[in-house]
């Protein structure tokens, strides 16, 4: 099944992305990949319900984003100019607690039930000379566990 809507939430340009910093450190220290310059992270909310764009923007702003530190994108990648990215999704039959909580929050906000679920994935944007193979290695050995997750690599 393909989702109807996608919202990507990330930290604003000058705000601290501590998950990105610790991922970068792990890439250098644990995988010994020195080519990495920095990492930024985001969360992607997939809506399996029909919602019009205005409403979705309102949900993104008021429910999914912390307006002081975060921004969101309704169309495509929230972060540009990266070399490679990895998106990690849970297998379809694995419980997605963040998705469940997001759904509860959105339903509270709308005052009605959504017809379909919300599933959440994590995305890592790599900056520096990172090739597709390196990105795959990082995904396999550090970020995704194939027992419960799948990943997709995107090369810019």
């Amino acid at each position, binding site marked *: 099944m393909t989702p109807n809507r996608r919202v990507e939430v990330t930290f604003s340009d000058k705000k601290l992305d501590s998950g990105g910093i610790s991922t970068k450190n792990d890439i250098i220290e644990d995988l010994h990949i020195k080519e990495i310059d920095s990492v930024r992270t985001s969360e992607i909310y997939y809506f399996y319900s029909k919602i019009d764009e205005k409403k979705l923007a309102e949900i993104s702003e008021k429910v999914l984003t912390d307006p002081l530190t975060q921004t969101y994108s309704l169309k495509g990648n929230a972060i540009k100019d990266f070399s490679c990215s990895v998106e990690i999704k849970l297998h379809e*039959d*694995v*419980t997605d*607690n963040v998705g469940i909580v997001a759904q509860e929050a959105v339903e509270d906000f709308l005052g009605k039930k959504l017809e379909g679920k919300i599933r959440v994935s994590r995305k890592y944007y790599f900056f520096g000379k990172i090739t597709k193979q390196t990105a795959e290695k990082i995904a396999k050995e550090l970020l995704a566990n194939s027992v419960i997750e799948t990943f997709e690599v995107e090369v810019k």
Partner: protein
Amino acid sequence: MSEIKLCKLAKNELNLLSKKMLLSLDENEMTEIQKHYQNLGREPTQIELETIAQTWSEHCKHKTFAAKIIYEENGKPEEINSLFKTFIKKATEKTNKKWLVSVFSDNAGIIEFNKEYNIAMKAETHNHPSALEPYGGANTGLGGVIRDILGVGLGAKPIANTDVFCFANPEIDSSKIPKGVLHPKRIFKGVRMGVRDYGNRIGIPTVNGAILFDDRYLGNPLVYCGTIGLIPKGMEKKEAKPNDLIVTIGGRTGRDGIHGATFSSAELDSNVPSSAVQIGNPIEEKKMMDALLKARDLKLYNAVTDCGAGGFSSAIGEMASEIGAKVHLEKAPLKYKGLLPWEIWVSEAQERMIISVPEKNLKKLFEICEIEGTEATVIGEFTDTKKLELFYEGKSVGELPMKFLHEGVPIKTLKAKWKTKETPEKIEETKDYAKTLKQLLGMPNIASKEKTIRQYDHEVQGGVVGKPLVGENQDGPADAAIVRPILDDWKGIVISNGINPLYSDLDPYWMACSAIDEALRNAICVGADFEKIAILDNFSWGNPEKENVLGELIRACKGCYDASIEFGTPYISGKDSLYNEYTNAGKTIAIPGTLLISAMGIIEDSRKKISMPFKKEGNAIYILGETFAELGGSHYAKINNTLGKNVPKVRFEKAKKMFSKLSKAMKEQNADSKVIVSAHDCSEAGIGVTIAEMCFSGNKGAEIFLEKIPLGEKIERNDVVLFSESNSRIIVEIDASKKNEFEKQMQGVAFAEIGTVTTGKALVVNGLNGKIIINEPIENLKKAWKKTLDW
């Protein structure tokens, strides 16, 4: 209703069926099931077979600990009927302590605390799940043991968590990692995050733990999680009654964790079912916990049990074992559609508990759940039919007599052997003591665990008065934690542990005795009353079907028995995780026999607590207990790439006398003008490391004289005195003006003044011949100790 045809199968076909369905049942057990159904004249349904497999799993029935064992120790035959009854339960019965409230019969052990409350403790392993998915495995390991405490008696309030991990060397080259195994550093980081995120988010402090390393944990990391709970007196008993409604409270049921119970009875290989992983949600558990404790105080239910391994099947099966139950599986709230009835029944989805509720209380229960934002659903009723009856959409899908389900499992007969090992002692004396000491301090077993401890919230709930990190810069390794659960009472609970799997390679008997001695030492060092310490045994072992592996387990159980009786320290709960072996490319690696002893004690007045850093220049340093030439299995032997010969033993009579006298002296001293100012347990790498830790944690120097150390036998080498790991030794700092008082209190115990806390910031060690062998700035020692696990 799907039937499984087994009545006409031959023995080898029964085995194949068990393998194919992931039942983890052996031929005898399958034959017993076959007989049962042949007598009934019908085939079992899938859900019946799954229920039996789960109820009879090693995880739930502890078949190895209940088995009859034909044992041979150094050629002498013995027969053991149940390791559990012979060595663990009997030890507790023999110690005969009046302060035991509930032992072995419930989800956790309970002892007396004060006039209003008792305290409960439970420790669990979550090894297999953590090997597959470190974050989720550790997450749900902690979530599970918290529910054990919520499910003891009518429910205890969780007040503290503990965690102990065993991993392979985190710096191992990734080319050496077999297929399907995660890198130990990745496992370590994932497990650490898992414990952090569950414990911190649910609001329970993580107060005590340990992390050990050995390369045999590569395919089988160990993750122990423990929880301590506070339960009002009179709430320790529970009993589900016929006509009570079966209510599931908390999370919804999904396909996660199916076959966890039976899976944990199998050796790991690289083929892993994804459904074996459970996903935790601490916020869900917190809401359920709050609702449950409210309902408990209003006495809305008669019994409670957590859904752990085996899910509904295990929880309802256990609660109804003496009465009977009817369950309507379609009523269970699901995370998503499409689950088969048997999947609903054995799913190990997290954050769920079962309560037995009289119908008249239902409305009130629902009101509470509504307020707390958690879900409660009636899924059946308890009966008096002595049968388990399962329905789906009105149709019967399974029916099992309780007697067969709970008592039908055939007792296993196993064989075991033990032969005392003869190993050579090949340790060359170090030429550079300062370098060796720094090397020892930097060994991952000994190195600072600050980076891990600091990720855990040990302050939440406001009762932790003995912190895991102590000293001038709050980075010294405390021996034990103290929790003061009632905020207007100074009485505290002391929590410590003892574990040293390296000794198992020489003799698991002394490994077990050493672990118990260490747990007691640690508790006493912070001020626990030696007369009132309860312990928990958690075994993680290899495949018990192998004679030598089971022989080692028996040696450990014998040690558990002797040490418990000699010290007068009872077991209140325990658990075993077996089959910790990993097969890769035809080669099987078993973990070293690992026993975690968790101790829970009482400190009457927590203002009298003692910490380990040196406090004041000029104070005297004493050692209590004798030192023997015991480098076998020691860390010093390990850096010499050898095992050594003499494993540390425990001289029970002398140890007991010392523990009693020290504990009494600490209890009787004035909180404002202490005689005993600090105390630190002498364990990994012996006196050298212990004193170094006391120095740099207190930012003080010290000078000690090895010739003054009381020896149990003739020792002529400095390295043996300094790094021997002899048990039952404690280093104490005594107020310079109160030495006489202390010496009087310790009469009859081996002790000696071995040095002083100094103004210089260096550790100076004078060797047996009076020459200085170490003169090292404490800053350098601390650096070596902090560097290894600084990530």
